[in-house]
């Protein structure tokens, strides 16, 4: 039991820290947008790199925070029926839906996501633009982000099972 509690704590901490750190990508996007407007409009010298780097930052801000968002239960859902069920029923429903919908989706996305990133690494893929930068930093975020989501999902599932078996909420 103590081990389980430690595992859940670690998983939650990973989500929390990753989310808080990768949230800064949005701040970076805004800083780079300002920089681009400044150089292009005021100095008349547009940069070739901001466009892609901003997109990479957005990729990180979206994909690397999915687990963190799940931890905070911030993914929009419909409480209409669900909200009226007793907590035990909710826990059972969560276990079913986590496996049936999220679980099945992330297992395929993780598997193919690794392939997706690996291909980009293998050929050292570059963007077809003037900047001609490597694509792998962005593409690697896909499997990494999905992996973080899986960690949070495991933590949530353990929590529900412990609640159902022992009746205590972790």
């Amino acid at each position, binding site marked *: 039991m103590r081990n389980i509690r430690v595992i859940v704590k670690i998983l939650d901490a990973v989500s929390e820290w990753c989310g808080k750190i990768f949230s800064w990508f949005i701040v970076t996007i805004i800083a780079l947008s300002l920089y681009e407007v400044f150089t292009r409009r005021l100095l008349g010298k547009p940069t070739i790199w901001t466009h892609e780097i901003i997109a990479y930052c957005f990729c990180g801000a979206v994909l690397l925070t999915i687990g963190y*968002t799940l931890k905070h239960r911030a993914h929009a859902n419909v409480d209409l029926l669900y909200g009226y069920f007793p907590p035990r029923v909710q826990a059972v429903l969560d276990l079913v839906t986590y496996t049936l919908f999220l679980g099945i989706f992330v297992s395929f996305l993780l598997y193919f996501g690794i392939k997706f990133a690996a291909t980009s690494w293998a050929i050292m893929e570059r963007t077809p633009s003037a900047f001609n930068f490597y694509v792998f930093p962005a593409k690697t975020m896909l499997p990494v982000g999905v992996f973080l989501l899986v960690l949070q999902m495991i933590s949530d599932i353990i929590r529900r099972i412990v609640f159902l078996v022992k009746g205590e909420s972790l």
Partner: protein
Amino acid sequence: MIDIPPVLATILMFGSILVGLSLGHPVAFVLAGVATIFGLLGWGPDALYIFTGRVFDAATNHILIAIANFILMASFLGKSGISERIFRSMMYLFGPMNGAIALAAIVWCALEAACTGVIGASVVSMTILAMPVMLKYHYDKHFSCGCIAAGGTLSILIPPSIMLVMMADQSGISVGKLFAAGLGPGVVLSALFFVYIVIMTTVNPKKGPALPFEERVALSIGQKAKYILVNLVPAAILIIGVLGSIWTGVATPTEASGVGAFIAFIFMIVYEGFDRKAFLDCVWSAARTNCMVMAIIIGASVFTAVFLGLGGGDVVREIIYRFDFLGKWGMCGIMMFMIFIMGFIIDWIAIVYITFPIFLPIANELGFDPTWFIIMIAVNLQASFLSPPVGYALFYMKTTVPPEITLADIYKGVFPFILIQLISLGILWVYSPLATYLPSILIK
């Protein structure tokens, strides 16, 4: 792999969404999960490789980046205290009229809508600011709920708006053009809300009395005028900074949204001083909201890929073309009706991503102006924020209202406002320049 007949696939896929949503699972994961299951059944596992491309494209989409910026901008603005000042200004302005607080709420919402583009933020802050005042002065609670929820939905129609950003992404029409097109209908809708409140409170002042005399004479007219003018300046700066730079071509919409977020950040520091904790809260909560929105986009995008791949699009198309005896306007009506009905159950983001690839080509074949057609859908979807059971404005509101107000009160309150939204849809239907005139002069 099973050969699923397209009609069956359509019914089963939408049926599974309904089941998943009613079990309380997050919208994004329901869509993605249904896509995975039906992709597996119809195509086999290998074809699911396309999901990675879909997810990656959404996460690196340059247009959608504006969503993240607008969300952070709304967070900063919320912490800056400007909202409260503008609301008080409006109360001074409309004080002597019946329904003063409700009128102030609607005008505040329209102004806020022109500054930001995120719906949850305005419903929540208006509920916090206006609801206690309304209850204090014995406003009818259904009426109050309706005003605030309906006013909050204006932010998705009046530019900037993250919904219009998504629609631009899905239609290939520029963000600037759709922003210009949304303004006219947004102003008309605000005016309709305003007139409705004036009529209702004139007929029955009990529903919403004027501000009490003591509150109104606390400041002299000169002081009030000064207060109002001073506090409208930040709103004006934001509107000019964001919309102005998009329409004059100084910045792309994505950059303009970044500039807007920066301006809002400056306001936060100027008005409230730099507070590290408040700043971090803004960044983190914006990241979560952005991720939530983007996850639904990703889910809807994968869902649509499978849905169209299994022939669901053709099924919907065929249903619409069954009605060709009604002429092109009749078919337009059918499409609008479908979206309105979907709005009762499915999330608006999902509706945009599912219906656009099917409906836009049809609208094109029928010879409708695409900008007009898209704004029609936007006005229509606005009603989906208010339509129970799944109306997001209602949920946001429920999380912030005092406990004596139930979800049923809110449902009752919004009903007349949904009718007003349908009226504005009718106005736009018969008078299309409302949406198409402004873009034609603003966007070259």
